[in-house]
């Protein structure tokens, strides 16, 4: 499966590592489906940012789609 990128420059920084976030591939799962997507992640500790626009937009759409499968 090809990787969709939702990585967008962001001002949010990891507080623990005190580092800016960088694009990285992340595996997200829902109801037995696994997707690899590109998100902004802390290179130090792996903290993954899901921005609001993604959560209430594309992600919600895919969740609903999978729920109806």
């Amino acid at each position, binding site marked *: 499966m090809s990787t969709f990128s939702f990585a967008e420059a962001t001002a949010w920084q990891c*507080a623990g590592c005190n580092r800016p976030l960088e694009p990285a591939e*992340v595996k*997200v799962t829902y109801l037995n489906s696994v997707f690899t997507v590109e998100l902004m992640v802390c290179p130090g500790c*792996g903290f993954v940012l*899901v921005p*609001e626009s993604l959560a209430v937009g594309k*992600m919600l759409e895919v*969740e609903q789609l999978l729920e*109806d499968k």
Partner: protein
Amino acid sequence: MDQLQLRELEARCIQEEQPFCTAACPIHVDVRAFMAALARDDVRGARKVLDRTMPFPEILGRLCDAPCRPFCKRGEIGDPLAIGSLERFCVSRTQTMVKLPKLPNKGGKVAVFGAGLSGMTAALDLARKGRPATLITPDDDIGGRLRSLPAEILPGEALAQARTILAGYGVTVMTATSLDDAAVTNLIDQYDAVYCDRDAVGALAGPFAAGEPDPLSLALAQDGCFAGGGLGTDGNYSVIKQVEDGRRAALSIERFLQKVSLTAQRDKEGSCATRMVTVIDGIAPAAEIPPADPAQGYTPAEARAEAGRCILCECMECVKQCVYLREYKEYPKTLVRRIYNNLAIVQGTRNANKMINACSLCGQCTVICPHDFPVAEVCRSTRQEMVATGHMPPSPHDFALEDMRFSQSEACRLSRHQPGHDASRFLFYPGCQLAGSAPDLVVRAYEFLSGNLTGGVGLMLGCCGIPAHWAGQQALFAETLDGFRAEVAQMGRPTLIAACSSCLSVFREFAPDLAVTSLWEVLDGLELPAGERRRPEAALALHDPCTARYQDGVRTSVRSLCAKLGLAVVEPALGGELADCCGYGGLMQFANQPLGTKAALVKAGRSRRDGLAYCAMCRDNLAAAGRPVAHLLDYLFAAAADPDPLARANPGFSGRHENRARLKERLLASLWQETSVARPAHAAIPLLIAPEVAALLDSRLILEEDVRKVIEHAERSGRYLIHPGTGHRLASFRPVRVTYWIEYETIDRGFRIHNGYSHRMRLPEETP
């Protein structure tokens, strides 16, 4: 749902039945569609409608004696439509628009004796079915009796066109051909079937000489011989009767050639009854609009106006009222088909899931429907089936079921005898929604009941389990109900006093062995509390909850209480057993949030007045939709100095949660001198939330408790993001199945919340 159940359900909805005109029409012209086209000035569209059903529109459209007209529904409010004159208008201004297909030749030789309109129709219909037909007449042209009509009534072109049509479908026409006894006997031998048009040839020899044809098939005693047309039993010549007989005979001959029953399933042929119901209340009467010049017939404007009087008869009674059916653009017959198909999907997207979960299960349609169509029961049992087969999506019901679990948890549930009593004759059950919406009123109502009823009034806090029932979660529902029964048994089986119509409906239906009554009936039997009370400034619209549909006693007592309190109330346009749902029922507002809001607005909009509810959920949902609304208990127990109950805000999901938990703590402390279970650590985190943010969190179904969990986790672990510009923090936490993200700011004594959102997808580091 199996196919048999589907068929039974489909048959109950009569929306697809024929309108009165079409049913009465011997060949079932779609008069309604014809009128609709004319009314929008689409004369060619109207012609298409005629072309689809009439064998020779140029003839029948001019001459039909319109036996449908007395059946026209418009006749009950004005005059029936001038169907005949409008057809004449249409065919005299249009050319053929639709040419029906001709099936490939299937063999079988058919002769038609006599070329009147009946014989012509039979020959044409047979030719279209792929049965070569020969039209034989001793006359020198086709038309029979029609040939003697003056040109103003039937212009010569109409018959000429009929000749062209017949030739176009390959009908052989033999004019000036003898049909004497010898010829008839001879011809019968040469053809597989014969139809005799009695209008055009009179009495013939052989099998046609004597005996009436069977009225259903027009078959004569001799196999393969049929007869029809001519004068009716009343001695009159009806044009449409010629067409009807010709068409009926053609169908019989087709069946005869196929060697199948001539009579089975023919009850819908010819003028027939219809089960259609069209309610005409509210439609203004309108008299017929005749043409200004009867000799010229209708002008286009006149025709449009006359056709515009058509009611476009249909049922749609339930759809007219139900916001859900309108939203999904279905009437129950099509709705059940979609549900059935959705259930049948093995692989692929189940597109109707959301629709199935969005019904409020309120049952309004069933009361409205002339055949009691049970949409609610269909949707509810379908949900149950979806849960059982593992096809129920989690998101529509998760939140409500969690909410129910919380109401049932140690944090909220309670059952105690009245202080100073060790037995209960009664047991007050306010229900989870009243406890969540107006805990003060619960306390005051309980004080009043325990002070005014003898024998001990116990108190039970909890949830009746109806969310699980609505969600199709039968196991959870049964478990909740069992727990409830056991607790009532432990209290010595007192008489339950339910404040909520939903609880009452659950207990009555699923625990009929328990003694149950409503708070309203009990209050109505008591001397009401004395003292100065608040009164609204104007009369209020009394909103019955949908769950009180079958609770006449409740509805009567509520009205009686209003009268005793001197509360002026008016009935909204729809109430009582027809009341709408506020959007909570069936968990509609969780499956389709905007629809839930629409439902609340529709319910509130049944009156322009401020509202009075006696269901806590109706109260809160109408308030959330921006309509001033009070709860009846407000006017029973609130003092004159209390804030205006019409202005009480919707507490939201967080508020209701908090209220329930605090209600238990408060009652335990004040009445039973007990302390409650300790609250979890995160409960102490002080939050500052602006009203807009609170409303956003509420609409996103994020509870303050979830917010606290996120912050507690972030601050304890140090795992959060920070925004260098604003200094805000952003953190997430997944308590169970949902990941919550909270953007917050640390302030002097606590946290200011700026935003919140959630998702169900799981990130790599999250376990549940």
